[in-house]
């Protein structure tokens, strides 16, 4: 595992961490997660285009949704591509690339197969940008800023 625990210091917004075990080797798990992402991602409910969306790709450059009108919607840019242990990308589906957070996925071998750990972080970066630019494109800035205020 190359990720670090969620920051818990004052002012930091905890990452969202999700884990799952899949019964195959990391090489296969990494391939399924990336090259085969269109086969399993719940597009109907978890995409910009919804049920009419035409596809989704994740390669060593970006994660991109193909819409039914032929256009593409970039969800994020790949920042780490280390098969079969780690992939990470910025995350801004349906919003401005400058309003991104970060998603990293780690694949670790275990006796049953592969332990997959997804971490969605970088919320505090949105807050900082908001403070500087007073930019209100996304509701997340206020939402997550509120989290910090509530946790303080």
């Amino acid at each position, binding site marked *: 595992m190359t990720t670090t625990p969620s920051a818990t210091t004052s002012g930091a917004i905890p990452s969202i961490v999700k884990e799952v*075990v899949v*019964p195959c080797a990391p090489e296969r798990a990494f391939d399924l997660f990336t090259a085969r992402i269109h086969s399993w991602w719940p597009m109907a409910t978890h995409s910009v285009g919804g049920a009419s969306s035409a596809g989704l790709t994740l390669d060593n450059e970006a994660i991109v949704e193909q819409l039914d009108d032929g256009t593409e919607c970039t969800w994020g840019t790949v920042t780490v591509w280390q098969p079969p242990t780690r992939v990470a990308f910025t995350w801004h589906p349906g919003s401005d690339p400058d309003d991104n957070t970060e998603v990293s996925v780690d694949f670790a071998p275990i006796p049953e197969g592969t332990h997959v750990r997804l971490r969605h972080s970088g919320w505090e970066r949105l807050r900082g940008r908001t403070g500087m630019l007073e930019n209100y494109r996304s509701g997340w800035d206020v939402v997550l800023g509120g989290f910090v*205020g509530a946790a303080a």
Partner: protein
Amino acid sequence: MSYEQVLDALGDGTRRRILHRLRSTELSVGQIAETLPVSRPAVSKHLRVLERSRLVTHVHVGTRNLYRIDTRGLDMLRQYVEEFWTDVLDAFAGYAGSPGPAGQFHPPSHTESASNTGPDRTNHDDDYHP
């Protein structure tokens, strides 16, 4: 009350500005209106929407109401993102042949007990071909 309602409430720029004002302090309607190019009645209307979405709440102080952030709406949005990734990883695990998600926040050494993955499940791995 749903996360959609919270997102709808946040879809308005004036309401986001009102929330921003309330991040670090409690304010009256008049105090909020002073810092925004919006009338007091309009601020009151926005505050009602925010209150219905559990994004703000108010307390009576003397003859006026003081508004402040209500974390329940924020918790709901946080929950929404949590569920988003749970759904995504469940779909991935299902495709990869796993019977279900591992327990959350367990270190890898503990996921064995949190998962019902049996030895027979590894056969599904061989079922996959491009």
